[in-house]
């Protein structure tokens, strides 16, 4: 017994140090990486300023394709933001013990992708200087206003959801600041002290934290579902072929959950490797979350079937033109590659236990992430190129669309922004919820101890009975 207890303490200590170690250094490679990201962001900013000065005409968008890469990226980023809700809230509410080491990274992904997803429509605005009009003249009947309301709610909620479980960890960082040797020690100490909100780990504080977490877990799930539903409504509320679909809400929500959880796997793999967390994020975790992605892919496949097979069977005129273009026309290569890569391939790969090993899983998830992005583009652009009225005698650039360097640069800057915030975050705060993993260790330990105690007692009992038997014989 004594021996076991000592081991648990040691385990907890190793865990704490493993989690805090990356927050104490800012190595050469990190500096280079941050510098690289800053260059991309700088160039993107320059392009955006160029766009502000000369208008959206510097992009490839024209009068038929009036929404392009920015809106596709908006849908994609808001989609990944569902990862945090899925992994944290759903797995928390269903009491999945294995969620513990991955909740923090998932919640962080939610937070940053919402930040950068949320600014996409603003980047896409013709008059960002008039953004206050949304408050002054805002009308509830516009799907865009629904988007703004639900995204702001979700952003606030997921920020709280990210921050709450950080409080005990902040206290830990604060208490161990002595071991930190970087230049910014003083600043860090002040930051941790502030963010710990006077956390002392008393019983009432734990109780309050747990109650709030439970409430937030329950609230955040419907909010997350509402977000992607209304994102789909900016398309589904129009009469356009390809968008005018009652399935769009659930279709977008499932697509979001599935691409989001794939991105969580990528984050897990990266942090595991970079911060040497192999001991805590194990093969088993990848296997389990692989099964989650597999299940979601199957639901997504079912949604795709409904979204394309039903209109394809009927081939109504306007819808038919669009579908013909997607299935056999100019978008067919992208469409079928996308369907095979993001639906068929993941199902095949992840159905086998070998496919849920880290390397094949990561490769599949990279394909899913890119494919999900392309899919958003295939939802937005081809529909705009298939209006009800014919496209006749217009400048060449109006009847085709491919994003140009301005759009790519600005979008790349947003992606770099996501990486930058994640990097800086991981250099300031532990990337695993230390106390949650600790709790897991304790539960694990307790159950082991319980088994041991039981076996011991059993052995004692049998010994005793033997003794009594012997005595009886005597």
């Amino acid at each position, binding site marked *: 017994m004594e021996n076991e207890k000592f081991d648990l303490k040691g385990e907890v200590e190793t865990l704490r140090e493993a989690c805090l170690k990356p927050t104490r250094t800012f190595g050469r490679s990190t500096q280079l990486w941050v510098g690289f990201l800053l260059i991309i962001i700088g160039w993107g900013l320059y392009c955006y300023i160029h766009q502000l000065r000369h208008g959206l005409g510097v992009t490839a968008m024209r009068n038929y394709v009036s929404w392009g890469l920015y809106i596709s990226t908006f849908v994609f980023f808001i989609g990944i933001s569902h990862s945090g809700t899925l992994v944290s809230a759903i797995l928390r509410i269903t009491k999945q013990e294995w969620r513990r080491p991955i909740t923090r990274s998932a919640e962080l992904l939610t937070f940053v992708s919402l930040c950068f997803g949320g600014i996409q429509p603003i980047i896409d605005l013709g008059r960002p200087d008039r953004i206050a009009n949304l408050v002054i*003249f805002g009308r509830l009947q516009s799907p865009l206003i629904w988007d703004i309301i639900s995204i702001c709610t979700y952003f606030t909620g997921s920020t709280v959801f990210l921050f709450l479980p950080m409080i005990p960890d902040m206290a830990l960082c604060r208490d161990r600041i002595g071991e930190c040797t970087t230049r910014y020690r003083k600043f860090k100490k002040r930051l941790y002290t502030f963010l710990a909100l006077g956390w002392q780990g008393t019983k009432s504080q734990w109780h309050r934290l747990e109650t709030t977490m439970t409430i937030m877990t329950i609230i955040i799930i419907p909010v997350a579902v509402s977000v992607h539903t209304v994102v789909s409504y900016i398309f589904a*509320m129009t009469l356009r072929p390809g968008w005018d679909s009652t399935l769009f809400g659930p279709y977008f929500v499932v697509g979001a959950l599935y691409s989001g959880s794939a991105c969580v796997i990528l984050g897990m793999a990266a942090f595991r490797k970079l911060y040497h967390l192999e001991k805590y994020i194990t093969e088993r975790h990848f296997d389990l979350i692989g099964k989650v992605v597999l299940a979601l892919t199957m639901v997504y496949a079912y949604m795709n079937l409904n979204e394309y097979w039903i209109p394809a069977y009927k081939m109504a005129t306007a819808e038919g033109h669009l579908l013909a273009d997607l299935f056999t026309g100019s978008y067919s290569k992208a469409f079928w590659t996308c369907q095979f890569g993001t639906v068929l391939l993941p199902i095949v790969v992840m159905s086998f236990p070998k496919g849920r090993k880290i390397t094949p899983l990561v490769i599949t998830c990279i394909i899913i992430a890119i494919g999900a992005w392309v899919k958003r583009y295939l939802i937005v652009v081809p529909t705009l190129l298939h209006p009800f009225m014919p496209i006749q005698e217009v400048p060449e650039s109006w009847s085709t669309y491919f994003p140009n360097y301005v759009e790519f640069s600005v979008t790349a800057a947003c992606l770099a922004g996501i990486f930058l915030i994640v990097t800086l975050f991981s250099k300031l705060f532990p990337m695993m919820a230390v106390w949650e993993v600790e709790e897991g260790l304790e539960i694990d330990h307790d159950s082991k101890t319980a088994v041991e105690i039981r076996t011991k007692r059993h052995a004692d009992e049998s010994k005793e009975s033997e003794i009594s038997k012997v005595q009886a014989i005597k």
Partner: protein
Amino acid sequence: MNKKIEESPEQDSGKTGRRNFLRFGALAAGLTVVGGGLTKVFSDAKDSGDKIKVFTPDGKLFEADSSNLCEYRPAPVSNEEARKGIPNKKFVMVFDLSKCDGCKKCTEACQKMHYTESDREWIKVFTMHEAEAEAPYYLPKPCFHCDNPTCTKVCPVNATFKRQDGIVLIDNERCIGCRMCMAACPYSTRFFNWSHPSSAQKKAIGNIAYSPEQSIPRRMGTVEKCDFCPDMIRQGKMPACVSGCPMDVIYFGDQNEDAVTNASGVTVKLSQFLEQNAGYRQLEELGTEPRVYYLPPKNRKYPVPELNSLEGGKKPKKHGGNEMGHMSM
């Protein structure tokens, strides 16, 4: 002699006396008056050499270079007025397709009136060929000013709105440029100002006050479209496309009066006209309730359109087969 002649914005449009006086002056100078008011629009920066005699508002005779003359525009109505619309009217337009020969004079008149760049056709003439067995025909398409407009519903800031006289307008000084209305419009009627208006256009328009009723001066990053020329209607005139049509294709009028009139001044009883000629609206099944009606192209009074330009020859690379003049629905 480079003095620019402009109307002061506070001038009341009701002061017809002065306008007649000006008109007289212009007539005296041997100038054709088109559409009323002082005319002549020049975007050319250079002196054209044409000297025109005009009267200034204070009654002096003046010889000015034609490049320095600006079109007379009455002071625009206030934003609130423009949002309310003209009381007791319900404007409606009818296209008699049997007379349309696709000359695009309506587009030209519209572009001239609104200082539009050549690529932007607020009224666009399509060459339609919907079925093999059917002869092709021309289809001019303005904004349909729908009674159940998909565009105004989705606008987050009420920048595009439906007025009591049936007209759908855009307030370019409120529009945030999200382009949700462009995505929502099933008729592809809306255009976006992707960049600053050209300097030639700015010069031609001059320094006039903005009003949603005249849609100019343009504002970068906002949406524009056919506006049924409410500023012309207020002066008791026809929209530019109606008066610009040499074939008398377009009828315009007030549904409350049940009468529409074309450029030659022929007035017909709207309900009877539509009923007897099988009037219809575009994509009626979408439920948008357009305020623009069409009479089918029966007994055509013009040669059948050449389809070569569309089907054969130089066909622009398109995503999908919708440039053939089929209406998709």
